[in-house]
């Protein structure tokens, strides 16, 4: 019950410099023109796939949706063997993107691509 543990550690709720680098979702706006795809993608003009970056905290709180395995791996890193890495900061949920594009045949294609935008992060 990581959430309860946090309540028992008052100093944990204070933001430290390390916590500022904690695993979090970041924005990254890019245009299809910058990616060199604007000759075949009509819409949208911009794309924000977002990305997850940061260190996974020593106590994996509930908001990270980390599986039990990640919590155990964290304990192993702290208490048993530091050669076992801490869990990694990776996307947890994604949302799709709709793309309107030209095909070489001249057809126009609307297509929804799954898992194209990161919506939240997890440590696992």
């Amino acid at each position: 019950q990581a959430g309860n543990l946090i309540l028992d550690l008052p100093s944990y709720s204070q933001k430290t410099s390390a916590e500022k680098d904690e695993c979090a979702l970041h924005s990254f706006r890019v245009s299809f023109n910058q990616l060199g795809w604007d000759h075949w993608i009509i819409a949208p003009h911009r794309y924000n796939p977002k990305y997850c970056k940061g260190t996974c905290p020593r106590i994996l709180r509930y908001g990270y949706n980390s599986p039990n395995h990640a919590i155990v791996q964290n304990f192993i890193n702290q208490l048993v063997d530091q050669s076992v890495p801490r869990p990694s900061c990776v996307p947890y949920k994604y949302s799709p993107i709709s793309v309107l594009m030209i095909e070489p045949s001249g057809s126009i294609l609307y297509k929804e691509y799954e898992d194209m935008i990161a919506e939240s992060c997890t440590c696992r």
Partner: protein
Amino acid sequence: EEGKEPAALSALARVPSLPLIQMLLEQVPSVWPCCHRKQLASGQPLRYMLNLYQNVADRAGRPRQNRKLGANAVRLVRPFAKTRQPGAGPWYMQTLDYHLNIQPGMEHLVRATVVYSKTLLLAHAQLFCVVQLAGEAGVPKLSPPRRGKRNALVSSRMDSWEERDITSHSLPWAWDSKKSQLLRLSHVCIRLGPDDGSEPEVGWEKTASLNDPFLLLYLNDTRKGLRAKMGKASLKETPDGPVLSRKAR
């Protein structure tokens, strides 16, 4: 972020946590066979698809929750061949051939429609049009508007595009071999007003050409098939076992 080096952006495409960026890269057409994009996508077809896009996705490209497409892909197909049929009197007719180009196993046809303009405006006349499927017998059922509504029709020409469901007609073609994925339509127009027996007006073909009916194929991209294809392309057996290799772009 904007203004960063292109190399940094291409690196983004290789971020392992964005595998579908890589999938998109696989689909980038490397060669354009005939024309510039602006020539390929212009006029009413592009306007139609942009309108569809705005209805089902927001400005950031996120699909709207209340969208009612019933499919995750819609392909607009224009005719690859057309033949003008000789006619007499007020009738104008051309035959249009379409390649469906559905990839069995990767794309599942949910619905097919044909979109056409009910009215065409010439310099000195107005045409009322329908499409007929190959095999549909008899004279097309044309019901021109009454004279009193003519002006209203002219002013609302942009709204005169109609979408007709042809799913039951298209499905047999969709699952056959690639060669037989051909669909033939007749585009039939009649001149509004009294038939004076004159020759078809000059400019009819050009106007009709700019307003050729097009198909909308509502498809479900079957991810299972797509993944299987990607898996086959990237997983190659070696004497030492399977290894992952990146497909050349």
